[in-house]
């Protein structure tokens, strides 16, 4: 949306800032390809700085959108995807302060680039019509918790992918397994499991807030497609966690579970949003 400051039109909108962020994520992705080829040995600082620059533009875009709406910018799919991406990059930038873990950017940047390109599709960001039926701090909190949960699930899937790649190389005695800077597979599994657990807690809190803030005031809340879908996602992640802790189904199966569950979220998030009257404001 075009912003108006003191009577003049600011043509550089929040979407432009986000586009700039996606360009930085794209540059970082190109750079990551070379890092993959070289086994993450060097120059991870450049990747970190590119992601940091992207993050700066990303935050500016979110800030501009948030100030213009006077609430947390999570009212359509563009905003929601932008929020999930923000959670992922924030987590990476904090983790990347430890220089030994900075190479994770090589995995985060492609994810951010594709999320960004997806978010920029015009259909995902229709002009806001009348104010949504449910607004305010409770709704913002509900959306923020849930989207941060998806951010954590996204990072768990990234750790799962790293696990699968390294585990395959170790199983088949590839020199790549030794040459790469990836952490030990046991640590990758622990990281993935912790992210999944934290994401699950955030999702649970977000859903409970949703029931309290919206569910009590709206008939048909529990038959809404998005609500049913969210409960399904919640059950899916609960299943993964129970399988790991109760039935010792860790390792490759758990990593595949984390990747597949997040792929399911990515592929169905948009569709269920469009079908949900509660979450889609035509």
């Amino acid at each position, binding site marked *: 949306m075009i912003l108006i400051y003191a009577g003049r039109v600011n043509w550089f909108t929040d979407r432009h800032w986000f586009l700039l962020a996606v360009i930085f994520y794209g540059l970082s992705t190109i750079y990551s390809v070379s890092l993959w080829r070289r086994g993450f040995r060097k120059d991870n600082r450049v990747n970190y700085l590119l992601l940091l620059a992207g993050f700066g533009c990303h935050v500016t875009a979110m800030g501009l959108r948030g100030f213009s709406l006077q609430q947390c910018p999570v009212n359509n799919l563009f905003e929601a995807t932008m929020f999930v991406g923000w959670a992922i990059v924030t987590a990476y930038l904090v983790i990347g302060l430890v220089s030994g873990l900075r190479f994770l950017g090589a995995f985060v940047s492609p994810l951010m680039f594709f999320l960004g390109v997806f978010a920029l599709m015009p259909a995902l960001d229709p002009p806001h019509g009348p104010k949504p039926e449910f607004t305010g701090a409770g709704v913002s909190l509900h959306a923020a918790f849930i989207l941060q949960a998806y951010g954590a699930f996204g990072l768990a899937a990234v750790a799962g992918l790293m696990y699968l790649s*390294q585990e395959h190389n170790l*199983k088949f005695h590839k*020199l790549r397994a*030794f040459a790469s800077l990836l*952490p*030990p*597979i*046991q640590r990758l599994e622990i990281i993935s499991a912790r992210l999944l657990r934290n994401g699950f807690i955030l999702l649970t809190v977000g859903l409970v807030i949703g029931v309290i803030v919206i569910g009590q005031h709206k008939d048909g809340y529990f038959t809404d497609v998005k609500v049913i879908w969210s409960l399904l996602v919640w059950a899916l992640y609960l299943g993964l966690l129970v399988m790991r802790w109760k039935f010792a189904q860790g*390792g490759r*199966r758990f990593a595949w579970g984390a990747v597949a569950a997040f792929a399911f979220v990515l592929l169905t998030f948009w569709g269920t949003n469009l079908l949900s009257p509660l979450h889609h404001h035509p």
Partner: protein
Amino acid sequence: MSVVVIGLSHRSCPVEVRERFAFAEARIPEALQALRGAGIAEEAVIVSTCNRVEIYAATALEPGPAFAALKQFLLYALAEPQSLHHLFKVAGGLDSMVLGETEILGQLKKAYDLALQHRHTGARLNKAFQRAFNTAKQIRTDTNIQRGSISIASVAVELAEKIFTSLGEHEVLVLGAGDTSEKTARALMSRGARGVVFANRSPERAQLLAAELGGRAVPFEDWPAQFDRVDIAISSTSAPHFILDPPRLEPLMKQRRHRPLLLIDIAVPRDIDPAVNYLENVYLYNVDDLQTIADDYLKLRHDEIRRCEQIISEKVMVLLTPQNLRRQ
């Protein structure tokens, strides 16, 4: 005045010859004094290690007479610029028996410090050695000459570190106490493994090794019972058949709640059925797998020699520019 080197190393003669030329550390200052006193060298450094004995000298003599004087000690002789090139190669580990090893750099520094302390070096050799140390550092940083493990034991340790978060939380089982399995167990213990269990058909050998490495010995037939405690197993028995196969390992993995298990099979004929590698969370490496990785690393190092030589040539050329020589 130019820098010359005369010496012998593992490349030019066997240990039986090298040991005859080696200098005891306490004798080096005296030998340096003798070299300078006889007018053979103005400045001198003697490097004496298990693999080489070399004398670097800055001398006013022409190379021919200088070598003739020095040859009574050692066998190879090089004049500038090859002498400096040689020094830089030695510092970078390019002339070592184990290509790219770093121990020689420490030994070279020690030799130089000894000569420096006794004031047997001056502007020429000070600059040459300091440049050699800097170049060795650059080679280490900018090339892959020191990358990777090139022995079976060190590859096994690296492998364990790629699987487990911290070796301090994991115990090692050694089945059959052969030489390579013992070395591997020692390497794992030196990298902080929590403990080691020896199971050998001869209990005395197992007890001896356990006492030496601070581990424990168990009767050979009890080894399956150890599998719920250990996460790394090294096998080198002389059994003529597989002692571990999928039907035997599957129930053990259930007992372990599918924790990752690293199996290192050093035995020939093999002790572990290769099919166990298809079980989830099991990583099996036999002696050929480990040797292949070590060889790949060595090949990687050999591929870097040309890059290292190029760096060295540039640095030596800079050291020998007229401006640099005037300053010295």
